[in-house]
Structures are given as structure tokens and as C-alpha cells.
């Protein structure tokens, strides 16, 4: 069983491409994936910066073909990681080394959500569970042991810095938040820290808007009020679902007329995008989507290069530990066959010995003999089994399994016939 990851992110594909493959509800895709012969376990990670399918598979080539089908038409914008590379990638993503804004904390929560969704869907087995748990602990180590997350220049910070280049002050400005999400809410909090007082929250479900409005001291609105809201707003933060843009150039042109052409600043971190890119062509309109935010935050990546190098060291270390566990996991079928063979042998020798006795042994004598033979077998197998189970490097583990098969006559063992039967 091998790890396979196919995906696209902010570096391999533009937001125009990524938004075509954004996954709102992963349940359907997870069901389809695990129902296929090629896939054992699966997790789908879909954020504004990446869409990734991570699976375990006994047949890498056919599974890869299946996963690439998901990105049909944009295969050139994808990347494929197999085995240890896939594990390393997952650890890097969770640690925010691979993020658009290196060190931003939101990705960890998004990875946890993706993992939880896979567990609830029954798509996550022992291997991916272990990998994601390892990824979460790696992220924690990276956060605690490096400066990568100190004074994080998050998307929220970049958004506020950009807004400050447009507006001199915020206490007389109005922000409009469309949708919800951790990043967009952090941006709003950062703007409120800069003095922003007037906040309007619009949502498809007004009840959701009400809940958010209560948190931010804002007013809540339905999406049908957008034309009026746009005319009053100075900063618009959007992060909501939907296949088509929620705001188009005509809406904004109309709002501009009503607001006497005062500048309007959009931060759109929705994928698919909530604001039509044509809006950016209008004068006095500044529209930043997730890719634009990456462009302006490149400096952040430069400053964090040294910390990121240290973080990469931690990721490598943790990946080795995971791989050691995976090697040990691969020994489980060998160990089981070894035990089954030994048990068969013990049982047949036990029965033969009993049949040679002059009289029928009592139940007590039988129990004592059985216990003795089992103890001998267990003690004989203890050392080789412990060695096979040890979390070691891949080559040593393979050598150990081959030696066990040869020494104990398990050559016909097929380690791949135990899909779904191994225990962690």
C-alpha cells in the first residue's frame, strides 16, 4: 500500500484554474474514491489556495490516472507526489511551509477539517490517520520550535496593509463582509483594530449573517441587499461559495455612480472567486484575489526563508518517523503469517504428542501442555516479531521482512493481499 497525492496549489495553477476544481462538499468525492479498486483510504483538502487528493493505493499508476481524471483538462497544472514525497508534502502543507503566506495559521485548521470530513465519511484508515496526526504534531513542533509563526504576516495582515494604501483612516469607513471563513474574519478583526467601526455582514442565509453580526457588532443583511450595501461600503471582504461570481462589473459600476466614484477596495478570497475579475478594470476599484495577495506578500516569504529552512528540518525528521511506522506497518502481514504458521505447527505437534501418550491426559494436563507449547512459540517468535515491528528505515525494514520470509519459509506471502485488514 503506497501513498499518492495529486493536487494543484497557488504555485502550480492560477485561481482561474483552481476555482474550477474547488470542492465544497468532499463527501461525494470521498465515497467515489474509496469505492474504487485502486484506492484504499482518501482525504480531500480543498482551500482557497489548493485542491489536493491524498490516497493510499496498492496500484500507483492506475490510482494516479483516476486522480488525474478529477483534474481533467488541467493536468498540466497539477503535481503528483508518491510515497515518501507525498508524506513530506502533507507535513509541509500542515506546517504552512507550502502556504501562500508562509507561517499563516489557517491552513492547519483547514487540514483538520479535511481530515475530520474523511473520518466521518469512513474514508480515512490507519495510514492516512497516522499521516494526518503526524502532520498536526509536526505543525505544532514547527510553530513552537521555529519563528515561522511569530508575528505572522497573514492574509489578513496583507489585506489590511493594502487597504491602508487606499485609505488614510478607517474610523469613517464601512466594511462589507460577504460570506464567512476564518481568514476573512481575521481580516475584519485586523481592520477593526485599525479603527474600522461600521461593519455590514451579508450572507445567503440571514441567520448566519445574524450570528456573525452579533460577534462583530455589525448589521446583518441578505444578498438581495448587495446593490445598496456596495454603494455604502469602502472595503468589501468576500469569501463565500458558489459557481458564479456574486458581484459583477455592472453592479460595481452602478455602485460607483451612487457613491460619487469614491474608491472601493475588494479582498476576494473565495475560490471560485466571488467578484468578477472584470471589476478590476474599473477606475477607483482595487480588487485583490488570493493570487494577488500572494504576489504582494512575497516579501514575507523572503523574510521567513531562514525559519522555513529550520521548519523543513523538522518536517524531514517527522517524515522519517512516519515512514518508520509505515515500514513497521508493512511488516504486519509478515508477522501475521509467521504467527499463523507457527501456531499451525504448534497445534499439529501438540496433537501428535497427545496421540503418542499411553493414556488420555486430563483436561488440566492438556491445558498445561497447551500453555507450555504456546509459551515456547511466543518466546521463540518474540525477538523476530519485535524486530519486524520496530520503526526503522525503509531499506532495513524490507531486508528484515525478506529475511523473515526466507528463514521461516514465508516466500509465498503477498503483502498486498491484506488491504483493509491491517491494524495500526
Amino acid at each position, binding site marked *: 500500500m503506497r501513498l499518492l497525492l495529486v493536487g494543484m496549489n497557488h504555485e502550480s495553477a492560477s485561481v482561474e484554474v483552481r476555482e474550477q476544481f474547488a470542492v465544497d462538499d468532499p463527501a461525494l468525492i470521498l465515497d467515489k474514491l474509496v469505492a474504487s479498486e485502486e484506492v484504499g483510504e482518501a482525504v480531500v483538502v480543498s482551500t482557497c489556495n489548493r485542491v489536493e487528493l491524498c490516497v493510499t493505493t496498492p496500484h500507483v499508476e492506475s490510482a494516479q490516472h483516476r486522480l488525474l481524471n478529477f483534474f481533467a483538462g488541467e493536468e498540466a497544472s497539477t503535481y503528483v507526489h508518491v510515497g515518501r514525497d507525498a508524506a513530506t508534502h502533507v507535513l509541509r502543507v500542515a506546517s504552512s511551509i507550502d502556504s501562500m503566506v508562509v507561517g499563516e495559521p489557517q491552513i492547519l485548521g483547514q487540514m483538520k477539517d479535511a481530515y475530520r470530513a474523511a473520518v466521518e465519511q469512513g474514508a480515512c484508515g490507519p495510514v492516512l490517520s497516522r499521516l494526518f496526526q503526524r502532520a498536526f504534531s509536526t505543525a505544532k513542533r514547527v510553530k513552537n520550535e521555529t519563528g515561522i509563526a511569530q508575528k505572522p504576516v497573514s492574509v489578513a495582515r*496583507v489585506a489590511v496593509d493594502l487597504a491602508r*494604501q*487606499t*485609505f488614510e*483612516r478607517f474610523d469613517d469607513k464601512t466594511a462589507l463582509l460577504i460570506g464567512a471563513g476564518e481568514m476573512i474574519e481575521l481580516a475584519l478583526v485586523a481592520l477593526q483594530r485599525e479603527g474600522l467601526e461600521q461593519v455590514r455582514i451579508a450572507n445567503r442565509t440571514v441567520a448566519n449573517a445574524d450570528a456573525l453580526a452579533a460577534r462583530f457588532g455589525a448589521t446583518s443583511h441578505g444578498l438581495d441587499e448587495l446593490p445598496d450595501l456596495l454603494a455604502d461600503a469602502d472595503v468589501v471582504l468576500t469569501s463565500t461559495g458558489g459557481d458564479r461570481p456574486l458581484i459583477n462589473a455592472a453592479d460595481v459600476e452602478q455602485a460607483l455612480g451612487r457613491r460619487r*466614484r469614491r474608491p472601493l477596495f475588494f479582498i476576494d478570497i473565495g475560490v471560485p472567486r466571488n467578484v468578477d475579475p472584470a471589476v478590476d478594470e474599473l477606475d*477607483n476599484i*482595487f480588487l485583490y484575489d488570493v493570487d*494577488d495577495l500572494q504576489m504582494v506578500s512575497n*516579501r514575507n516569504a523572503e523574510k521567513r526563508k531562514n525559519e522555513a529552512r529550520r521548519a523543513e528540518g523538522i518536517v524531514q525528521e517527522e517524515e522519517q518517523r512516519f515512514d518508520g511506522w509505515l515500514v513497521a506497518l508493512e511488516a504486519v502481514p509478515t508477522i501475521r503469517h509467521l504467527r499463523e504458521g507457527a501456531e499451525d505447527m504448534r497445534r499439529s505437534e501438540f496433537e501428535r504428542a497427545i496421540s503418542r501418550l499411553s493414556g488420555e491426559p486430563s483436561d488440566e494436563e492438556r491445558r498445561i501442555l497447551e500453555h507450555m507449547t504456546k509459551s515456547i512459540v511466543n518466546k521463540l517468535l518474540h525477538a523476530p516479531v519485535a524486530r519486524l515491528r520496530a520503526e526503522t528505515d525503509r531499506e532495513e525494514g524490507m531486508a528484515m521482512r525478506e529475511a523473515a520470509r526466507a528463514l521461516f519459509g514465508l516466500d509465498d506471502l503477498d503483502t498486498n493481499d491484506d488491504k483493509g485488514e491491517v491494524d495500526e
Partner: protein
Amino acid sequence: MIELYQIAAALYLAAGIGSLLGLLLPSPKMSRGGAWGLAVAAVVHSAAFASLHTMNPPPPLTDLVLVLSLAAWMSVLALLALMWWLRLPGLAAAVGPFAFLSVFVTALQLPDAGPARAGATGILPHAHVILGAGSLALLGLAGVAGGFFLLEHRRLKSKRSLRIAWSLPSLEALDNVNAVSLSVGFVLLSLGMLTGMAWREKVMGAFWAGGSHELWMVVVWLLYAGLVSLRFLGEQGARQSAASAVAGFAFLLFAVVGVGMWA
């Protein structure tokens, strides 16, 4: 007296270079140093103006070189006043060199002391020159703010790095400078024209003589009247207002300096 002008010119140049370096490096200390340099230069420049009155009789205030020097001084004072109100890093990098050029030319061509032109004494000619120089200074500041606005607008649209962002004023601050400078500058321009006409009427008995300066200034006034109307009736967005302020100031410079030199 010449020395004071030379010192002021050197200080304006240093302030302009400091502000420019502060903008490009970017360095907040350099930017702040540039602003302080501009303030010191303005003080020396004031002393240079005061020293003109030690000449007997003082040189005529209506001399173009002195008008430009006065306009430069007023633009620096206006900028320093606006910097108390708004965060305006970077603007000194444009105003400093302009002030340097004006004062440098004054130091080279300081008019000799001599009898003033007939009728060029008294309140009306002084008021005309001061109001005219004030309008040149403020409309010039509106043009500079407009130029910075266009640069910053373009930079924000092109989604470039935030590396030098902090060293530039916000679009809103630049637009505020543009609005204030344009409105006050237009009022000064109007008053300057009225005092000029009154002066002419007093000296020559007619409000209008149809000279090239008068003609061009009427065109300038009409142009700015149109820009101010568009700006404050909400027909123009901030970017269009900025572009108009740049074009208007270029036309004003031509009408005052170009036509003045040609005449």
C-alpha cells in the same frame, strides 16, 4: 542676501534628495529627515525674503523670478501644514527639487535694487503677486499630489509588492491634498485675477487690456473653474481628478512661466 538664497537652495536640494532616498530605499528616517530639511530650508528662505527689504529700494515683487521663489516658499509651507494633518511621506521628494530650482534661479538672477515699475507699489500689486504665487503654489501641490496619486493607483492596480508601500501616502490622503489644494488654489487664483484687474484699472484706467498674460490667465481660470466644478459635483472620480490636476498645473506653468518668459 544672495548667500541666504544659496543656503536655502542647498537645503531644499538636500531635503529633496533625502526624501527621494527615503522613498526608494525605503527608509523612514530618511523621509522624516527630508521633511525636517524642508522645514529648515523654508525658515532660511523666509529670512532671504526678509533680507530683500534691507535693499533700498527693494527689488520689484512683480519680477517673475521672485514670484516663482515666493510660490516655491508657499508650496513648502502648505505641504508642511498638510503634513500635520495627513500622513504624506514622499511628497517632499517632489516639492523639494521644485523649491530648489526656483530658489537657485533666484540666487543666480536676483533682480537689482531699483525703482519699482510705475504703479507697482502699494497693496494691490502686492496682493496680486502674493495671491497669484499662492495659487501657483497650491495648484502646483494639487498637481504633485495628482501625480503621486496616479503612480500609487497604477502600483496598486498592478499588484506589486508592498515593499515601498509605507513610504507612499495613501490614495485617500493624496486625494484630500488634491481637493484642498485645488479648492483653496482656485479661490486664490480668482482673487489674484480680481486684484490684478483692480490694479490695472488703478494704473491704466481699464480692467482689461487684452495682453497675453491676461488672456492666458483667463483661459487658466476657465480651465480650473471647469475642473473644480467636475471635482465637487462628483462627476469625476479620484483618478480623473488627479489626472486633471496634473494637466491643469502643466497648463498653469506654461501660462505663467512660458508666456511670462516669452513676453
